[in-house]
């Protein structure tokens, strides 16, 4: 993998009043990788993503996404980066095709290519059969896949997936994870995924970062973290064990 950083942050900090949500975060994510963004709830993962999307302004520090500053050029960043938020919202009375058409219009996708692109995106996420159904009748797993289809419509270079498997049954969450993996493999999408399903993260992520109380306590390929915590030759430790070790120490 070539080591071109597409996301870089430098001492990125966000404070809400006296409460510091993200503390001096320095992060690098490389092109074409899946980065597992781990940490307990309230550790500042979502806040970090919002700052990278230009949806909220950092208190101090710098961020670069694809070489762009999200504070100064939020529109360009949002055009290239897709965000699948936690508890994703949707318009219950639209069907999948109408929803994707709306996203395409907001992204200025030339109208003559839209329908073919929607067909392709729905096929990729396996919703082609369901496209006439209103989203209000969708299961949670289907909604999440529709969210991925939105990223395909936008042709995002980077995807921020905030808890994409939250509340999914095992089958749906496996399907989601495989889909995410294939987006990275086939579409060369750089993916930042936050999740609590550690064994799944372990399966697909190239590198992970562990964030606790606003601070990034570890960052790197799994084997490196294992070596760091448990010593040389102990690279077989699972992500779960590594995570718990960091969690107890902090």
């Amino acid at each position: 993998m070539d080591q071109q950083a597409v996301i870089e942050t430098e001492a990125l900090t966000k404070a809400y009043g006296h409460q510091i949500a993200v503390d001096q975060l320095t992060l690098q994510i490389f092109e074409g990788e899946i980065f597992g963004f781990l940490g307990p709830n309230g550790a500042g993962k979502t806040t970090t993503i919002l700052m990278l999307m230009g949806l909220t302004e950092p208190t101090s520090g710098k961020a670069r996404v694809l070489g762009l500053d999200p504070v100064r050029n939020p529109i360009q960043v949002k055009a290239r980066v897709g965000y699948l938020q936690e508890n994703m919202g949707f318009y219950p009375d639209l069907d999948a095709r109408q929803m994707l058409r709306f996203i395409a219009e907001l992204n200025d996708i030339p109208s003559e290519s839209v329908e073919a692109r929607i067909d392709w995106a729905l096929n990729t996420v396996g919703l082609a059969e369901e496209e006439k159904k209103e989203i209000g009748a969708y299961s949670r797993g289907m909604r999440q896949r529709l969210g991925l289809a939105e990223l395909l419509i936008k042709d995002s270079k980077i995807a921020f997936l905030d808890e994409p498997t939250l509340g999914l049954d095992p089958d749906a969450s496996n399907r989601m994870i495989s889909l995410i993996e294939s987006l990275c493999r086939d579409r060369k999408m750089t993916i930042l995924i936050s999740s609590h399903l550690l064994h799944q993260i372990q399966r697909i992520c190239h590198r992970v970062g562990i964030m606790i109380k606003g601070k990034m306590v570890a960052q790197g390929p799994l084997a490196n973290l294992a070596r760091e915590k448990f010593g040389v030759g102990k690279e077989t430790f699972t992500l779960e064990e590594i995570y718990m070790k960091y969690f107890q120490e902090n």
Partner: protein
Amino acid sequence: MKGIKAIIKKELSDHFSSYRLIIIFALITMVSLITVYMVGLNIRHELKGIAKPRFVFLMLFTSPGAMFSLVQFVAFFGPLVGLILGFDGINRERNQGTLSKLLSQPIYRDVVINGKFLAGVILIAVMMASIVLVIAGLGLLLVGIVPGLEECLRMGIYLFLSIIYIAFWLEVALFFSILFRNTATSALAALAIWIFFSFFISLGASVLGNTLAGSAETDTTESLVRKAEIVKAISLLSPMELYSDATTLIIDPRRKSARSVIAVGPMEQISMSRFSGPLALSQSIMVVAPHLIFLTALTLVCFAVSFAVFMRQEIRSV
């Protein structure tokens, strides 16, 4: 304004498929039809056998039918249309989690509120234009008089004023939908403002007028006039008062001033009745211009405040 077309389109299709819009349209169509029917019959009866006065056509809008004239009706219930269209504009998106989805698309944040506002204004324009046209059409049938150019122009100005007036209330409702998370709260807050300006401000104005200009026992001509002026000035703060003044001036050319008390002696009264010709259109416009400007300014202020509040809101709380 990138993306604003998409938002407007989405909003319009949402509105057109919503039951509440259908109900509003049905109600308003019904009321305007009934009003024009009664007024039309009335006018026809009164005009029997006499020479037709000028601007008879405009009387369709101004003369009261069973209870109220159409102009009064729009002044009173037009705000409700604006409120109903806007009260859950932003907070509904927020509650269903689509606002942050919208904002993570490559559009500026203000495009969302601008799009919603413009979609509402388009609907209001369509609604008001169809009401005016229905009345004009039926009026033609019932009264049998073709409106002249000036009457058409006056109707056009009336239409324009009404659209701005209802758009103001739409903006008020949108503002509350930005401010409050709960749709019921924002609806009630908007209703409270409407009730305040519709009913209570005139009450408050007369109380204030009494206190400032002296009690009723010591009434002199001067104090009466002063009192009337104070009451007028205060009630002009109300958009409803502004609008009704402006529309009656425009659509009823015989009214020459928005002042409610005109102190005249018997000689002046005689000379006034002798020269009671209608006001020319250009003069009517001049009298109305300040009202129009003030109404537009109110809308703009409201818009600016909601803009500022919306731009400052943290996405996190979205």
